[in-house]
């Protein structure tokens, strides 16, 4: 009898500790990936025989981030082979459109959307016994990161006395926000009458970030490759504190818009006037970043000559 009571008590405690209240929001802006691409197993197979004349390449495309893709310029390209031996029959030179893939939302915080892109290759008979090569899939797409956090602003950070404060300005670590470019942390520097935010942006996706208007240069077949003034650029589209855009106050941006990453990260700072703030208070800080991204995947293939 005692054992049963103890068991029921334990069960009650266990259930109460693991239930979450109704309507608790789950953050969907998490993760360091945007579009992830991968060759489907056996498509192409590791060995292709040259009497087959055609080979299908199937690429799985997943949107792991919080922004939708599939616009006109979002494309996948296939390269890395000798065109005298392997000829793409469709789309490899101009790229194939990335399908419409919705990003994570508040209603689907853990679901990533997925689709497939197919290329068909023509295989010419070999004059050698085998031709091993590494095929490269390149995804070029536009993306956006929205970083949201709560910051404390204090119009009088150095008041005399030891009065209690509603909040104390402090730096905030943000982690990742459902995209390959992330706001890593925001340093809050409260001064009399204004608060300065130093915002650190990093490339956490493992690929290449570049300006959206340079999308055509992302293709491996482009006449002109991405150059110094296009690669490692992120556009800061807006910085909002509360309901006020403080983007015009931001310094450290090129042409007032772009942040150049060096060694994968960079910082810029913006300030908010706190003269009329009254007293210390918390406000939402939103940073919006716009950029284009390039992700790649490799697959080893061998074409074998059939005598």
């Amino acid at each position, binding site marked *: 009898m005692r054992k049963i009571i103890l068991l029921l008590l334990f069960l009650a405690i266990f259930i109460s500790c693991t239930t979450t209240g109704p309507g608790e929001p789950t953050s969907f802006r998490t993760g360091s990936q945007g579009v992830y691409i991968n060759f489907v197993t056996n498509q192409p197979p590791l060995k292709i025989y040259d009497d087959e004349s055609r080979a299908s390449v199937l690429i799985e495309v997943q949107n792991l981030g919080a922004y939708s893709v599939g616009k006109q310029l979002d494309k996948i390209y296939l*390269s*890395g*082979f*000798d*065109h*005298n*031996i392997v000829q793409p029959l469709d789309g490899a030179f101009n790229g194939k459109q990335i399908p419409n893939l919705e990003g994570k939302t508040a209603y689907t915080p853990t679901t990533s959307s997925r689709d497939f892109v197919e290329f068909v290759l023509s295989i010419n008979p*070999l*004059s*050698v*016994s*085998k*031709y*091993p*090569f*590494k*095929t*490269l899939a*390149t995804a070029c797409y536009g993306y956006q990161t929205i970083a949201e956090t709560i910051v404390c602003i204090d119009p009088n950070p150095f008041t005399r006395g030891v009065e209690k404060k509603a909040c104390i300005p402090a730096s905030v670590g943000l982690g990742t926000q459902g995209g390959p470019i992330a706001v890593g942390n925001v340093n809050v520097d409260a001064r009399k009458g204004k608060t300065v935010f130093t915002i650190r942006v990093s490339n956490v996706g493992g690929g290449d970030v570049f300006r959206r208007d340079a999308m055509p240069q992302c293709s*491996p*077949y*482009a*006449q002109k*490759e*991405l150059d110094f003034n296009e*690669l490692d650029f992120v556009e800061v589209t807006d910085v909002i504190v509360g309901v006020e855009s403080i983007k015009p106050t931001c310094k450290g941006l090129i042409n007032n818009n772009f942040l150049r990453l060096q060694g994968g990260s960079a910082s810029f700072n913006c300030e908010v006037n706190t003269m009329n703030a009254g007293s210390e208070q918390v406000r939402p800080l939103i940073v919006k970043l716009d950029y284009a991204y390039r992700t*790649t995947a*490799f697959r080893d293939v061998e074409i074998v*000559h059939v*005598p």
Partner: protein
Amino acid sequence: MSRIFSSKKSVFLTILFLFVLSCTSDIFSGSEFTGSKGLNFYFDNNAPPAYVYEESAVPIRIFVENTGASNVVNGVYSLGIEEQYIKVDKKTDTINLKGKSLERPYGDQTQIIVEGKAKSVGSQEGINSVLSFSLCYPYETKANIITCIDSNPSSKEKKVCTVNPQSFSAGQAAPIGVTNIVPRMIIEKNGVRPQYIITIKNLDKGEIISSDYVNYFCTGKSIPTEQQNVIDVEVSLSDEKLVCNKNKLNLKDGSDELFCELQRIIPSVEGSYNSPLTVKLSYGYAQTITKKIRIESKN
């Protein structure tokens, strides 16, 4: 204690494995077949035997195998004997043997059988004689080397391969082989012009003679000097012929180098990719083996 010992053993075996792997890292020989011989041939141990008696039969058997990847067509063999001591029914003939291929992993083999007879040694107790057997045959080496083309070397984009020199120590199933290639991507307007420095070596111990004159070696005719150590060469990149600084190599010192380049410029839009470089060598090869035989007096 036993655990410590077994973990030390695992570490040792791993290090040994890595060492062996690094020593054998030249796994790709530049051909689907490896080897540094064309025709391999030897006297049978007992034919001829080490000792025969005068005026008795001298059986001679030579085993010949094509261990390379090229077919031998109209090769010639020649048996050299001291006619005052031995006579034979046939001293020379043609030989044809197919080489290795994808359908046939082992080349053709044959036995050359010659019936001889030892002559009288007169008043001597015995004499030593030397038999020689020469094979002369036209042969080919076809080296297929997968090489990296980088049409935009200064680009920072991800590349599927790296342009690097390659060495081949295992041969390409022929007595003459490509041992080294050094590729260079010369940047020109809007692209690159691939260039290659190719080293070719005599990997076996035979004589190199132009394929048109190789049979002279076995038939005793005089070979013009300019036809000795000469190899015809053709190089192509993905079936496009390269222009080389010479179309005949001279391997007087055992090796020679060749410089070739592609006539057209590969545009930078083609990116980086692997492409087969084919080096085709045509030549004649001549080798000789010998065996001593003692002819004893019957008395």
